[in-house]
């Protein structure tokens, strides 16, 4: 008997641990489960509480897309995601590489500046950024001094240009490039490859994990962004998905819950899938930067 006890006690502890974690994990996803279940219910089924829908109303997803211009909101979000992410990949990784591998005077100081900028919370920048975007010279009826018009307000430029590089991604890229051996670049130099060529053809391909991490982080933040589009745009045709969801959720008195849940499901699903497939990159990025939460 006594020989069995030490072996079985950890096993019991482990079973208990799994049960507790499963309960906790269930609590974490209950809101999502209820979101999905609600999204299949008919409009008058949600007047009282029930777990399961009477019958699965798949048409909710189609009807919801028609109830508000959600299809356009989706398109707008896609434009913003792509429009931000491609330049971010170019600018931030190039800067990160330069800071990590090339002999720049004052590169340490510049890196420190990027880190300081990385600390500034976006919430702080919203009001002055609104003014900067409105004052862009020679845009939206502005003169060369940025006076007189609306600048980039209510244009795609306002949604995209302020976010085409980010100190966080420059920093992430720099941290990655620092660990690559300089000998690789030296060998290419001997072969007569240009400096830009070395970055594009030799170092950048080695930094694929950094590119993936930055892509995932930026796609997520561009897709989920809300407060800036709220402030910087006023015409419906520019507004992204999160904005559409917010407006629909605030529909005074008569929120059509199944439709709202269907759209929330469509808005969250791509990011959840992205995370599930890119887990290790998300986690590596989180570990280096410590952002969020």
């Amino acid at each position, binding site marked *: 008997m006594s020989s069995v006890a030490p072996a079985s006690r950890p096993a019991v502890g482990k079973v208990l641990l799994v049960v507790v974690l499963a309960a906790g994990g269930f609590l974490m996803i209950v809101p999502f489960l209820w979101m999905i279940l609600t999204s299949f219910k008919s409009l008058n089924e949600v007047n009282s509480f029930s777990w399961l829908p009477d019958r699965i109303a798949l048409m909710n997803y189609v009807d919801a897309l028609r109830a508000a211009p959600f299809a356009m909101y989706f398109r707008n979000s896609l434009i913003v995601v792509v429009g931000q992410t491609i330049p971010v990949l170019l600018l931030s990784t*190039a800067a990160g590489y*330069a800071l990590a591998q090339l002999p*720049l*005077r004052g590169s340490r100081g510049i890196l420190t500046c990027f880190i300081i900028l990385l600390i500034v919370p976006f919430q702080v920048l919203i009001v002055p950024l609104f003014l900067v975007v409105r004052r862009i010279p020679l845009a939206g009826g502005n003169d060369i001094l940025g006076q007189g018009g609306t600048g980039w307000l209510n244009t795609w430029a306002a949604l995209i240009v302020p976010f085409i590089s980010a100190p966080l991604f420059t920093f992430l890229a720099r941290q990655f490039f620092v660990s690559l051996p300089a000998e690789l670049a030296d060998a290419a130099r001997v072969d007569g490859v240009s400096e830009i060529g070395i970055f594009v053809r030799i170092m950048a391909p080695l930094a694929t994990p950094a590119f993936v991490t930055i892509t995932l982080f930026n796609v997520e933040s561009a897709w989920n962004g809300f407060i800036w589009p709220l402030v910087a745009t006023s015409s419906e045709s520019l507004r992204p998905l999160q904005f559409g969801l917010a407006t629909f959720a605030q529909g005074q008195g008569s929120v059509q819950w199944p439709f709202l849940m269907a759209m929330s499901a469509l808005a969250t699903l791509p990011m959840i899938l992205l995370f599930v497939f890119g887990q290790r990159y998300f986690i590596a990025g989180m570990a280096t930067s410590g952002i969020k939460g």
Partner: protein
Amino acid sequence: MTVETLERPVGAAADERPDRRRRGGVERAKARAGWLLLAPALLHSVIFIALPGLMAVYLSFTNARVAGQGTWIGLQNYVDLFADAQFLSALKRTLLYTIAVVPVAMALSLVVAVGLNQKIPGRALFRTLFYVPVVTSSVAVAAVWLWIYNPAAGLGNQVLSFFGLARSGWLTDPDVALPALMVVGVWQGLGAKMIIYLAALQSISPDLIEAATLDGASRWQTFWNVTWPGLAPVHFFVLVTSIASSFQVFDLVYVTTGGGPANATNVLTFDIFTNAFERLHIGYASAETVIMLVFVGILISLGRLSLRDREGL
């Protein structure tokens, strides 16, 4: 632009001329390429982050409105702010939200991380379940919780009545609204903290744990004497970044309550938003922003300092 190369090797003078010239040329080419690659991102950050950041500070000393220039009014905005009951209660509410959310979320995330650090089946699945709320948009999260907190048919009241408790008005009840949002804050922030704790736990040397176990320490003793001290810098990091993000809660409030009922959920960022884009008092809102920046900036820089050694910066 003349960019001098970095430290020249001491023996450089002994080199033959052509070789030295070639090396100098390479160094110059490197520096040129470096500036070329760095310039776009640097310029962009200056225009869209550094400039607005400085503007926020400048504007806070003016009475600027959305239209037209403001004039310099010195510290008047700050003086007014500290006599403004709405601002003060927003600040107090933000602190309350932070004090309630951060310790609870930290404790829960540590417990989950320690659990997930054991060899158990389904670890990856559990990690995903706990992390999913972090990657979902806070607007969608807010929409779902708005429905959960629906007084008539929501899941929240169903849970209450399951436990035999009285139904609640949730977000429509001024006494319950803020605590209800705190629950969402804990739920959404748990995963991010858990991942940081998990990474830290995995970096604690298993040898130390094994040594303690061989010395006859119980699991509990091992945790308190080996694991807990090893987590010290991470605790601090998680603490300050969590405080900083609690200070910035906005989307959730905007979508679910719009600061109500009766201002019960009017937190700092929401107050800033209202002052700037509804009352159009840009200068006044900027002063509020600067106060937030001071709070958050100090906290985050402390957090980063604490991790400096780990990241080898």
